[in-house]
């Protein structure tokens, strides 16, 4: 992989130093006004360059969160998704060539999820900031590897779901967050929230079809197991096959698990138990339906991912999704009043420019995905599973634990240095 790209940091650092020098008594060079953002111009240090890896349906939709940006590269293994001829300058089919671009600041990743981790790691190793569509990963070990790679290479990361930002500005959610984070409740098992997901399923008997001439199917599969091509496997409906994603539970579930994970102050841990309710057995290839999965955290907080209307209703004890000072005793209320509010979440636009990690960062996104993957693992094995959030392993269930770190098809693999 390319060495960490320091050119962008040096360029940005030069412009910042130039801006500061211009106010000093002994300034030896003239700083153009647009570098300082005067006269309504956007300073070049505020306009980042971006590349899109995965130019299909979702495309660059989420890149607005980076603020002013200039697209300089597009990459897809299906050339029908590219607006120009492959020239390895603007249009690419291999994401590794994109990462070699020295003038590139941010990579937006809109590939199917089975590619997310490897492309994120490649971007981090190349020193590129990362915007990654949800769900961040296909299996739990990938998330740990991405979080570690992002931390090691000090790049910025934002996941493509944003409701946690509005939760973090809501006084009710802030109070909820503080109460749970600091363990002020006598019994946190009263805390229960429901996260919604849709419930679409894959097709169970996919006959082999000719591969379209524009698609490099082998590269599209990448780390996923080889299975004969069928159009149902690719380009949106990949969501409904275990080899590429986790169905609507991870596809839509991310939008509600992510903000609730913030509200429940669980960004740095994972559930210790997943209890499923789903039709069984699941098909080995196609994602099936599910009713709900109850995820329980160590302090007793429960999060239930719901499969949607018409399925079986959750059978656990009732609870409440928001707690406030009225749920505390006098000592708890006093303690709550003394606690500061959490720091505001940093937007991706600000993260890229200030180098403070964004609100939807790699660690929190890994934990969101870990919760959803645990839910799917429980559904697939058809039984309750126990999880160690520190070791990030399923306890006492070898088969289930094999779904935590799924071997990739060669030559692709998670770099050992980022695991654990």
């Amino acid at each position, binding site marked *: 992989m390319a060495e960490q790209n320091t050119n962008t940091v040096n360029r940005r650092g030069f412009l910042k130093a130039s801006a500061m020098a211009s106010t000093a008594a002994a300034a030896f060079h003239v700083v153009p006004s647009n570098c300082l953002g005067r006269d309504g111009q956007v300073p070049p240090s505020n306009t980042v360059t971006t590349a899109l890896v995965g130019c299909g349906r979702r495309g660059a939709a989420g890149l607005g969160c980076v603020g002013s940006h200039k697209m300089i590269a597009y990459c897809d293994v299906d050339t029908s998704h590219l607006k120009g001829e492959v020239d390895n300058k603007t249009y690419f089919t291999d994401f590794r060539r994109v990462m070699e671009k020295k003038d590139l600041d941010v990579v937006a990743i809109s590939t199917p999820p089975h590619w997310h981790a490897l492309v994120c790691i490649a971007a981090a190793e190349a020193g590129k900031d990362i915007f990654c569509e949800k769900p961040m990963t296909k299996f739990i070990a990938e998330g740990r590897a991405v979080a570690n790679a992002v931390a090691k290479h000090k790049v910025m990361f934002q996941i493509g779901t944003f409701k946690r930002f509005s939760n973090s500005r809501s006084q009710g959610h802030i109070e909820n967050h503080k109460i749970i984070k600091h363990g002020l409740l006598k019994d946190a098992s009263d805390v229960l929230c429901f996260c919604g997901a849709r419930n679409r399923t894959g097709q169970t008997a996919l006959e082999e079809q000719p591969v379209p001439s524009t698609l490099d199917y082998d590269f599209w599969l990448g780390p996923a197991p080889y299975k004969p091509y069928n159009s149902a496997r690719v380009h949106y409906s990949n969501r409904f096959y275990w080899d590429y994603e986790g169905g609507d539970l991870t596809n839509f579930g991310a939008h509600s698990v992510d903000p609730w994970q913030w509200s429940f102050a669980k960004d740095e841990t994972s559930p210790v138990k997943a209890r499923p309710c789903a039709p069984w057995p699941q098909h*080995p290839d196609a994602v099936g339906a599910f009713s709900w999965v109850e995820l329980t955290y160590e302090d007793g907080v429960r999060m239930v991912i719901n499969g949607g209307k018409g399925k079986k209703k959750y059978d656990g004890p009732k609870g409440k999704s928001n707690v406030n000072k009225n749920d505390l005793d006098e000592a708890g209320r006093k303690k709550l009043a003394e606690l500061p509010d959490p720091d505001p979440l940093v937007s991706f636009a600000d993260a890229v420019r200030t180098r403070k990690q964004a609100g939807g960062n790699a660690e929190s996104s890994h934990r969101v995905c870990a919760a959803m993957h645990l839910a799917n693992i429980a559904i697939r094995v058809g039984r309750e599973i126990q999880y160690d959030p520190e070791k990030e392993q399923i306890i006492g269930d070898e088969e289930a634990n094999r779904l935590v770190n799924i071997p990739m098809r060669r030559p692709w693999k998670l770099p050992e240095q980022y695991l654990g």
Partner: protein
Amino acid sequence: MLSLQEITDLIKGFPADDYEPAQQACGKLVAAGPKTIEALILMAGSKFGDKEGVQPKYAVHALASYVCRPGAEKERQMFAETLAGQLDGDNSDDLKAFIIRQLQLCGREQEVPALAKTLKAEALKETTVQALTAIGGNAADKALSGV
């Protein structure tokens, strides 16, 4: 041993809305022994997308999970050994690949010798590498060292 019709009747309701009836069906299949499991595996079809193989594939995959439940080691051994036994012989590469993917979940060191043989088949090599990697341990590492 169960007849083909008895097997078909047991698995026609897969997936079931509840775990209990599905797991009861799995219990009956396992209790019927290796010959029943072999018959079920062959019902899964010779081609990846066989429509006739859908229910048997649900069932074989269900058994791979069912026998891995805590406390069922003897059942797992019987099932995994029966699966591995189908890697020899005339079964199609598609069916063998399906079997190897089940062993990736339920196989242990005892199945490594059978998987080491499928490493030599070009069409099955990558699938086998993934299964052996998941199984892990000295025997699997040794089998993979030559790849």
